[in-house]
């Protein structure tokens, strides 16, 4: 019984956070731009999320006649599924997790890579040149950043001596891994941005040049799934960073561990949004160059140094 | 082009292969290079007056300095090196414009030329934009130039194009340049109507707004707001190409559409200003029905109409259809299908039908070529037999004028002066003209060009013609004139025609005398048999007379005098009262149970009809017309049909569907009926390969009727309904009622308007031409249905000797056609109607004295029981015992002319 509650919690918390993020992001962005943002629907505009959801549900769900229909319908679902599945290995608190897998990190990396199928298939099935270009960019971006995303985490794995998220959090009892693994954190953070196509790395969408890229042709709830998928990604990445570098649920005991976990995650989400508010989008080739020529060597260097130090200590 | 030897010139560092013997400006425009210019007009030649077309010419490759020359005065020679972009040449051109603009008024917003002004284009092209001249502007008083042309002299830039066109090209007398130095004035000696029949071309020739279209001013619309369609003039048999322009559901103006083979750059005033009947308030816009002969007609809707018609065409009823030479080929064909071949009547008199058929057969069988207007312009000896060209085929008269200048051009060429160099050519020419002989019963405005004129009755004109033929070829029916002078004239004409390289005979059916036509044919046959040359051009009465001749059918007269009842009589766009006596038509109508008339304007025939169907005009429909040359040309819809107006062929198709039982047709759109027509009449098969059907696309797009700057799309209909209705689809043509579509130049027959970036004025036409005054790119529009056969036997017509002796007190009455008035549709144009004279009679002074009448007196004429009040005009060129009576002017009754009649005081 308790297990079912945990599963429901793990399913609903990220979903509601992701939905709420729509409002949070718009409000935060407007504060940073000296505006007010959505404040008309309900107190502080909180019901904006509900209004938006209702709107998305009732919009005409149009499937372009020129599209590849089954793939077109399937694509938005993939991103939701992979993102939500990944949450199952994340410990929200001691005992508050669905699964303590001993290959948790690998499961996360694998799942987040599968997410790109959603975009590529969506772009391909739309049968629209902008969508296709967006999809191509997304896959190239994914390939690039996937490589050192994994590598950057290896330092943490070495320190904790485990692939299990639960063990990694346990291993941070004496100090968050951000301190010994600062470079790893930086590289992972940037890779996480790219992985979720958040600004400034929203090159697959790039509405200025690609008119919303891979989801140009999507409307109604299918578009909503892409939309929520993106926020789920943000939440997931924040949760992962919290878990791997900021000690997960660990914190002073006057508040429950779940609170600390969610609090840290929320702060990280805000940082994600702050980056969106402040940084311009790089060119596609700049992004690739940055990935291959700077971040990859940096991640390898981090791995080397961490390994060397660990061997030296032991 | 490729057959001539090409030479190489270098323009701004690029080598071009060009034709020799042209001027540099012409050449550059041919190459698509923009050189600003004013006074040069390809049809008028160059005079080098405006100094705007300056370019820099270099002596050789080493010459870096060069010198400024006027490109319009510079012959193109091998290895010529010039620069258009040269900084000095540019500065020179900007300075010329700046000078011209010092006195130009600041009035583009209220100027009708604005938006299609050559001066605006040139000012922008040269880059002049700020006025530095601080002194006052010169002003002029304007003149009232009559109902067609608005005068605003302040806008003049003294390029002389107007007088060069009006006087030198069109032969006008009453427009000239006055005053001197900086005060040159273009106008008349005093206020008054411009008399020349081609005055409307001043609107297009003037590079700025001095002469503008007064009929357009009444409902003024900028060029960019006009929705246009390629059209064909319906007011005479020449078939000039026009651009018909629409705004707010009314026809706004007619402009010339270039056709190198037909009208070139110009149009006559009947064609240009005759369009107003389309907007007439009296237009029939709803079907009208009367249930009883004594009742008034009432407007009804389509449903009611079709319920009334449900029985009209059933097989047990005798249905007769009367076609029309002013309706399109397709409409006539649809009528023919409705009533069946045996019951189809062409709606023209027996005489007219015989004459037209004689001509068509002759042109088909004799191997003699009938020329286009362009070829008429190339003729070097012309004989006009019995046709008053200026009034019956005005543009042909203009072509004859151009032809008379061939001798002068030849003389100039001999002295090494190219024919484009207008001024010296005129000086060398002096009074020399290519020979033209005119044989008509009374004076003619072409007389001034004639080497000899022959004034007599049509019988004698025909005699003269036969005599010429017999002098040329002894095989021809031998005719010798009793009068020695006349015989000498005949011999002179014969020898001139024989000597000429390119002789041309012009005649027409307006004389109403078959012998005249036969004589003309005989002369052409004689020329062909002895010299294997010669052209024959025949003027026909109406825009589609030739097209109708291709369809089999009975003449109108066959219906008269019968006793049997006709159940349904369908009359297509034909006012029968213009074609036969009132008596016989009323008798015919009495025999009819139901009379259905399809027409645009109310007339005597619609008045007596039981059912009147609103037919579309040329501006609201598409159709094919065949001109006197046998050139089939298509006009397209400009105005979206409103109210219940529909194309005649569409109405007739619906009638055919009502009839069913006997025949069913699947005509959904225009192309269907054309295809069906081609199947039934293999003579017209040539049409198939030429016309673009409705599926034709320019790179997958339709051709837009509206320019890209068309304004007010979201506002025009907003008064009635703010929610926008989609654009009207056009299933009948490759054109679209929108500004969206192909930006490429359409094929010649589909060009709806002329525009090119930087060229908003009519001069943009150069971008659509192979070369100025040449052909349209991709070939001129229209397709000739009659081409001369080869190796044809020589056969001559015999003269028909059935001349009637005049009784004492009887007069020989000959028809006098009027450019303004004798055509049915254009006489309903409100502005043009102001130029229509009251019905008149030409009398010799001696005869007038005998009859005791003076100029402008009223006199009564009696012909075949018809009595008419006419105004006397003393005209000494008409022979004694003869009287010329105006034909078909508004208010006149039908007269069978030429004929005999009596005068009563």
């Amino acid at each position, binding site marked *: 019984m308790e297990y079912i509650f945990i599963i429901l919690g793990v399913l609903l918390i990220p979903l509601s956070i992701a939905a709420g993020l729509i409002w949070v992001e718009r409000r935060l962005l407007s504060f940073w731009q000296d505006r007010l943002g959505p404040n008309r629907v309900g107190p502080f505009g909180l019901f904006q999320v509900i209004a938006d959801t209702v709107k998305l549900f009732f919009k005409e769900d149009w499937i372009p006649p020129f599209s590849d229909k089954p793939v077109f319908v399937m694509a938005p679902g993939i991103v939701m599924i992979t993102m939500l599945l990944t949450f199952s290995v994340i410990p929200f608190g001691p005992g508050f997790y669905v699964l303590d897998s001993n290959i948790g990190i690998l499961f996360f990396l694998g799942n987040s890579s599968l997410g790109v199928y959603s975009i590529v298939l969506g772009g391909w099935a739309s049968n629209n040149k902008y969508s296709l270009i967006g999809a191509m960019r997304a896959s190239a971006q994914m390939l690039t950043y996937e490589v050192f995303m994994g590598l950057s985490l290896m330092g943490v794995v070495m320190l904790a001596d485990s692939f299990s998220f639960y063990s990694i959090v346990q291993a941070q009892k004496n100090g968050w891994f951000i301190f010994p693994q600062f470079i790893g954190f930086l590289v992972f953070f940037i890779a996480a941005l790219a992985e979720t196509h958040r600004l400034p790395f929203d090159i697959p969408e790039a509405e200025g040049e690609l008119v919303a890229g891979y989801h140009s042709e999507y409307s109604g709830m299918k578009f909503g799934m892409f939309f929520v998928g993106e926020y789920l990604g943000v939440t997931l990445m924040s949760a992962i960073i919290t878990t791997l570098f900021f000690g997960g649920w660990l914190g002073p005991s006057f508040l429950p561990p779940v609170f600390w976990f969610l609090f840290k995650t929320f702060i990280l989400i805000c940082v994600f949004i702050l980056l969106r508010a402040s940084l311009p989008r790089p060119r596609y080739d700049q992004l690739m160059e940055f990935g291959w020529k700077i971040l990859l060597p940096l991640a390898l260097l981090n791995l080397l140094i961490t390994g060397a130090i660990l061997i030296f200590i032991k | 082009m490729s057959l001539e030897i090409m030479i190489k010139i270098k323009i701004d560092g690029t080598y071009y292969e060009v034709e020799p013997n042209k001027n540099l400006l012409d050449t550059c425009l041919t190459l698509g290079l923009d050189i600003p210019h004013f006074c040069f007009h390809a049809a008028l030649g160059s005079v080098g007056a405006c100094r705007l077309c300056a370019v820099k010419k270099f002596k050789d490759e080493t010459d870096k300095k060069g010198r400024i020359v006027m490109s319009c005065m510079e012959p193109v020679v091998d290895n010529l090196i010039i620069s258009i972009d040269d900084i000095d040449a540019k500065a020179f051109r900007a300075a010329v414009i700046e000078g011209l603009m010092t006195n130009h008024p600041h009035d*583009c917003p209220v100027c009708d030329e604005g938006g299609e002004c050559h001066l605006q284009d040139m000012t922008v092209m040269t880059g002049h934009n700020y006025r530095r001249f601080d002194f006052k502007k010169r002003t002029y008083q304007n003149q009232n130039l009559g109902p067609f042309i608005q005068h605003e002299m302040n806008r003049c830039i003294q390029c002389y194009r107007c007088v060069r066109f009006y006087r030198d090209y069109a032969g006008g007398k009453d427009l000239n340049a006055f005053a001197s130095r900086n005060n040159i004035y273009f106008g008349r000696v005093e206020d008054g109507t411009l008399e020349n029949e081609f005055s409307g071309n001043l609107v297009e020739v003037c590079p700025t707004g001095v002469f503008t279209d007064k009929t357009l001013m009444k409902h003024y619309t900028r060029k960019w707001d006009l929705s246009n369609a390629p059209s064909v003039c319906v007011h005479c048999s020449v078939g000039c190409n026009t651009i018909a322009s629409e705004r707010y559901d009314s026809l706004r103006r007619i402009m010339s559409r270039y056709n190198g083979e037909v009208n070139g750059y110009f149009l006559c005033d009947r064609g240009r200003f005759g369009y107003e009947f389309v907007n007439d308030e009296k237009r029939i816009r709803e079907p009208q029905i009367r249930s009883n002969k004594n009742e008034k007609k009432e407007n009804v809707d389509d449903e009611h109409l079709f319920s009334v018609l449900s029985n009209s065409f059933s097989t047990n009823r005798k249905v007769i259809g009367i076609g029309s030479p002013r309706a399109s080929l397709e409409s006539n064909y649809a009528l023919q299908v409705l009533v069946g071949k045996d019951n189809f009547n062409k709606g023209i008199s027996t005489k007219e039908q015989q004459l037209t058929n004689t001509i068509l057969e002759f042109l088909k069988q004799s191997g003699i070529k009938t020329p286009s207007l362009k070829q008429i312009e190339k003729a070097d000896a012309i004989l006009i037999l019995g046709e008053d060209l200026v009034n019956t085929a005005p543009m042909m008269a203009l072509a004859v004028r151009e032809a008379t200048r061939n001798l002068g051009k030849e003389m100039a060429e001999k002295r090494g002066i190219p024919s484009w160099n207008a001024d010296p050519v005129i000086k060398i020419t002096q009074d020399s003209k290519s020979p033209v002989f005119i044989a008509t019963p009374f004076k003619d405005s072409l007389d001034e060009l004639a080497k000899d004129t022959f004034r007599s009755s049509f019988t004698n004109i025909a005699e003269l013609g036969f005599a010429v033929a017999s002098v040329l070829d002894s095989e021809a029916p031998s005719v010798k004139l009793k009068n020695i002078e006349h015989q000498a004239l005949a011999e002179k004409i014969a020898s001139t025609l024989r000597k000429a390289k390119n002789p041309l005979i012009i005649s027409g059916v307006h004389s109403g005398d078959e012998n005249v036509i036969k004589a003309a044919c005989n002369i052409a046959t004689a020329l062909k048999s002895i010299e294997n040359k010669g052209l024959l051009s025949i003027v026909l009465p109406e825009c589609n007379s030739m097209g109708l001749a291709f369809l089999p059918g009975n003449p109108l007269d066959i219906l008269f005098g019968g006793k049997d009842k006709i159940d349904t009589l369908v009359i297509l766009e034909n006012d029968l009262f213009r074609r036969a006596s009132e008596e016989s038509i009323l008798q015919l109508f009495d025999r009819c149970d139901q009379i259905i008339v399809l027409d645009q304007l109310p007339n005597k025939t619609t008045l007596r009809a039981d059912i009147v169907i609103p037919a579309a005009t040329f501006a609201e429909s598409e159709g094919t017309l065949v001109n006197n040359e046998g050139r089939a040309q298509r006009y397209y819809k400009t105005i979206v049909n409103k109210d219940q107006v529909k194309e005649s062929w569409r109405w007739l198709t619906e009638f055919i569907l009502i009839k069913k039982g006997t025949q069913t047709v699947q005509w959904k759109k225009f192309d269907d009926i054309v295809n069906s027509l081609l199947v039934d009449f293999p003579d017209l098969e040539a049409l198939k390969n030429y016309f673009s059907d409705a599926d034709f696309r320019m790179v997958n797009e339709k051709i837009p009727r509206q320019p890209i700057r068309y*304004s007010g799309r979201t506002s025009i209909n907003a008064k009635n309904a*703010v929610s926008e209705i989609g654009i009207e689809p056009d299933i009948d043509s490759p054109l679209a009622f929108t500004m969206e579509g192909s930006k490429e130049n359409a094929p010649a027959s589909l060009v709806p308007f002329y525009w090119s970036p930087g060229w908003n004025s009519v001069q943009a036409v150069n971008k659509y031409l192979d070369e100025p005054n040449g052909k349209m790119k991709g070939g001129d529009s229209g397709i000739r249905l009659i081409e001369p056969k080869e190796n044809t036997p020589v056969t001559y017509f015999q003269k028909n000797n059935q001349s009637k002796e005049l009784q004492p007190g009887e007069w020989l009455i000959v028809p006098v056609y009027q450019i303004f008035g004798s055509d049915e549709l254009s006489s309903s144009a409100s502005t043009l109607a102001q130029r229509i004279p009251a019905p008149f009679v030409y009398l010799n002074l001696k005869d007038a004295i005998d009859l005791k009448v003076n100029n402008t007196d009223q006199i009564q004429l009696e012909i075949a029981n018809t009595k008419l009040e006419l105004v006397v005009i003393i005209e000494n060129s008409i022979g004694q015992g003869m009287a010329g009576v105006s034909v078909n002017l508004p208010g006149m009754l039908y007269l069978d002319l030429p004929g005999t009649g009596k005068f009563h005081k």
Partner: protein
Amino acid sequence: MFSILRTIWLIFLHIFHKPETIEYPEKKPYLPPRYRGRIVLTRDADHNERCVACNLCAVACPVDCISLQATEDETGRRYPEFFRINFSRCIFCGFCEEACPTYAIQLIPDFEMAEYDRQNMVYEKEHLLIEGEGKYHGYNFYQQAGVDMGVKGKGEGLNEELPVDVNDLMP
């Protein structure tokens, strides 16, 4: 690298700034008299319509929401027979004012044009024409333009000489 961090920091600081937003329907912002809202048609000092129906506003309009028809009074003075603007299409770009050669079209601070019935957004000349001269006093197009259109005779406009005597041949 540093500039990126600085940017992020500066943007972050904006959270402490006061928002610039004016919450419109409750609080009305101040609009200067020359604020460019919807158009009106003005008259000149003689109380005649300034519009000469030149069609330049219509052609400048990027959404094609102006249509008009020129006509003339008995003296030959041009004016629009009708002048229609479909404000439901208007984007308030002001190009028509820029294009107007006679100062007839001027923009005023009125922009609150919400209607329940879209048909009410279609304004005809009588809705647009005001009594005054608007922003530009004393300008009369016909005094500048060298044409005789019932307003003045030839040569009586600004900067014009008396009409040429055509019969005069003096050098």
